[in-house]
């Protein structure tokens, strides 16, 4: 007789690790998206070049390879990270590169007229960005950020390759010990789906909040 409650508990423990990776990875990705995305529209060539290099490198190489580098190669350079740290770093940097282009696109989408109004009102570059451009660009970023966050959630499965006991890793363990394929994989399928759904709804709520007033209805 298989101890299913125990095995499901194991998968749920893995789900917590997946959740942790997703949240921490998203935070890092968000920071990187803004740093590199705003770096891309900087007036300094060196900053633009640095941001572009980061974006192209992390978009252009595989998340697997990036993870292996962070976990297996960095120790040779004297930087040893825990599997969780390595996972968060690789996922955050990878998804942040995609997010950076979202930030850049949204900032560019706020037209010349708004920028000219800022100059005519004598706002500094920082003030224009902080009080005029970004508040209008943010609602444009959210739908794509939602996509990126879901991609990051699903991407967390790769960390099972560096022995981090996330949801996918635990499902493999359960499959090996019970011989059942259907139950563990069906369980994580549903769990991934529910997590993605939660991200989706959370983002939609956020979107409604930040666009409030812009459509002419002040509440």
């Amino acid at each position, binding site marked *: 007789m298989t101890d299913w409650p125990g095995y499901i508990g194991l998968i749920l423990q893995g789900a917590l690790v997946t959740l942790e990776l997703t949240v921490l990875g998203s935070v890092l990705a968000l920071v990187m998206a803004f740093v590199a995305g705003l770096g891309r529209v900087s007036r300094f060539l060196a900053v633009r070049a640095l941001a572009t290099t980061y974006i192209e490198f992390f978009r252009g190489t595989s998340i697997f390879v990036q993870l292996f580098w962070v976990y297996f190669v960095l120790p040779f350079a004297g930087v040893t990270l825990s599997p969780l740290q390595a996972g968060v770093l690789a996922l955050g940097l990878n998804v942040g590169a995609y997010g950076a282009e979202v930030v850049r696109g949204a900032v560019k989408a706020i037209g010349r007229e708004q920028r000219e109004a800022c100059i005519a*009102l*004598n*706002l*500094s570059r920082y003030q224009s960005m902080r009080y005029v451009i970004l508040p209008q660009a943010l609602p444009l970023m959210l739908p794509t950020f939602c996509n990126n966050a879901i991609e990051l959630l699903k991407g967390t499965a790769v960390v099972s390759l560096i022995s981090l006991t996330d949801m996918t890793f635990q499902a493999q363990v359960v499959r090996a010990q019970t011989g059942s394929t259907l139950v563990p994989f069906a369980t994580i399928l549903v769990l991934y789906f529910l997590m993605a759904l939660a991200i989706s709804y959370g983002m939609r709520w956020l979107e409604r909040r930040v666009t409030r*007033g*812009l459509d002419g209805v002040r509440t």
Partner: protein
Amino acid sequence: MVAPIIRIDNITKRYGPLTVLDGLSMEVLPGEKLALIGPSGSGKTTILRILMTLEAISGGHIEVDGDQLYHIPKNGSLAPADDRHLHRMREKIGMVFQHFNLFPHKCVLDNVTLAPMLTKGVARAAAEKRAMELLDMVGMADKAKSMPAQLSGGQKQRVAIARALALSPKIMLFDEVTSALDPELVEEVLNVMRKLAVETDMTMLLVTHEMGFAHDFADRILFFDRGKIVEEGKPDEIFRNPKQERTQTFLRKIIAAGHRV
């Protein structure tokens, strides 16, 4: 003799091979109301944009209120201005745009208070008090909490005028401020500007296609064509008795198009 507040000296403006302004010189006296008229592409809007530092000049010098706009004195000669200098010079100048350019994510009141609070460090309470006075003057005090999207074009433009006035500039630039409005909304904006002309001693430069308004409002009219001032003078001289053929042709076309003079 009063010193001019704006002295434009032999400026050129090129976009690639296209020369928009070609060795243009002009002066504006403090408190003067000046209307710039002429066909599209004649360079009149470009002058306002250059004065607001939205476009750089390709050559020449501009002096505003005693200081060079695009240059700073350095070792006895003039060097290109840096950000700090431009920031200081922009304090003297305000601009109202054809398409209002209000901040859509901020209510009317916040549109007016944002710049004084950020650039002059005015406290919120004081900024709001002054903003309400200005909104009252343009007849928009009752819409202080409305969002720009809820306003008509004429209302938006009146808010934009209040927003520019909140920084108390010495010089105000009006760039075709009624061109984007439905005809029935033009008058409410023009009324605000008439009021400004009477109640303040601001220097005002106006680019417009409203010839009747230019005639009543301006102390002096400049007629532009192909980047040069073709003719200038008192409104009556320009509109009743233009000397240059190009001015006559332009005014004939404008009248034929149904604009009253």
